[in-house]
C-alpha cells in the first residue's frame, strides 16, 4: 500500500508566453479519443486539447443516432447519422463560446484564460474541492442517512 499515498508530483512549469508546459507538449503528438465532450468538463477538455495543446488528432464520441435533442448541436437529430462535418463545425463554434464562459476556466485561470488549465499552480484549482474532500465522510454519512 505504500504507493497509494504518494501522488507523483509534477512540477508546474510556468514558462514565458512562448513556452509550452510539458503537458501541452505531451499532447501535441498524441491522438486522443474523448468521450463526454458535450458535458461540463468535456467541453473544456476538448477546447484545451484542440486550441491550446493542438493535439495531433482528436476523436470525439458523440451521440448522434438517438432521436432526441442532441446536446452537441441543439437540434433534433434524425434516426440516421448527421453529417459529421456539420457536427464538427457546430461543436467547435458553440464550445468556443461556452468554454470561454465556463465556470471552470473562469475560476481556474481568470488571468490566463487562453492558457492550459494544467499550467495553473495547484492552489489555483477549485479551493472548494479540498474542503469537500475533508468533510466528505461526514457528508456521505449524512447523504446515506447513517
Amino acid at each position, binding site marked *: *500500500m505504500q504507493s497509494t499515498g504518494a501522488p507523483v*508530483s*509534477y512540477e508546474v512549469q510556468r514558462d514565458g508566453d512562448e513556452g509550452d508546459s510539458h503537458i501541452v507538449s505531451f499532447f501535441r503528438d498524441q491522438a486522443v479519443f474523448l468521450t463526454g465532450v458535450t458535458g461540463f468538463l468535456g467541453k473544456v477538455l476538448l477546447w484545451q486539447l484542440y486550441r491550446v495543446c493542438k493535439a495531433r488528432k482528436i476523436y*470525439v464520441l458523440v*451521440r448522434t443516432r438517438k432521436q432526441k435533442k442532441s446536446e452537441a448541436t441543439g437540434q433534433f437529430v434524425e434516426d440516421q447519422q448527421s453529417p459529421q462535418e456539420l457536427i464538427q*463545425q457546430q461543436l467547435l463554434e458553440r464550445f468556443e463560446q461556452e468554454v470561454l464562459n465556463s465556470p471552470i476556466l473562469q475560476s481556474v485561470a481568470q488571468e490566463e484564460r487562453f492558457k492550459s488549465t494544467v499550467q495553473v499552480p*495547484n492552489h489555483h484549482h477549485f479551493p472548494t474541492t479540498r474542503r469537500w474532500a475533508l468533510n466528505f465522510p461526514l457528508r456521505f454519512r449524512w447523504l446515506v442517512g447513517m
Partner: protein
Amino acid sequence: MGTELSVAFQVVGGDVAETQMGMSDYDRETICREVTVILHGAATTKFTEHIQTALRVNVLGVQNILQLAKKCLVLRSFVHVSTAYVNFPQKNVGIVQEAVYNRT
C-alpha cells in the same frame, strides 16, 4: 477551414452505453490503430437518474470503453474522469490530490 478542422478533429458517432459503443466497424478500427490517449468523461451525473440508465452509462460505459482500450495497439494512457465521491473510502490517502497517482 473545413479541411483543416477535419484533419485534427473528428466526430465519431456512438454511445458509451451501447455494446461496442455503437461505433461503426470502420471507426473502431481506426481508433484502435491510431489512438494513444483515451480520456473517458462520458457519464450521467443526475442524482435522480433512473437506476438502469445510470448503470448502463456509468458502469457498463466504463466497461465498454475499457474493452476498446484493450484493443488499442499504441495506447499510452487511459484517463477516467470519475467523480469527487468515488475515492473517499480509501484509507491513508487523506485529501485526494489533483495529481497523478502511482499505479497499483
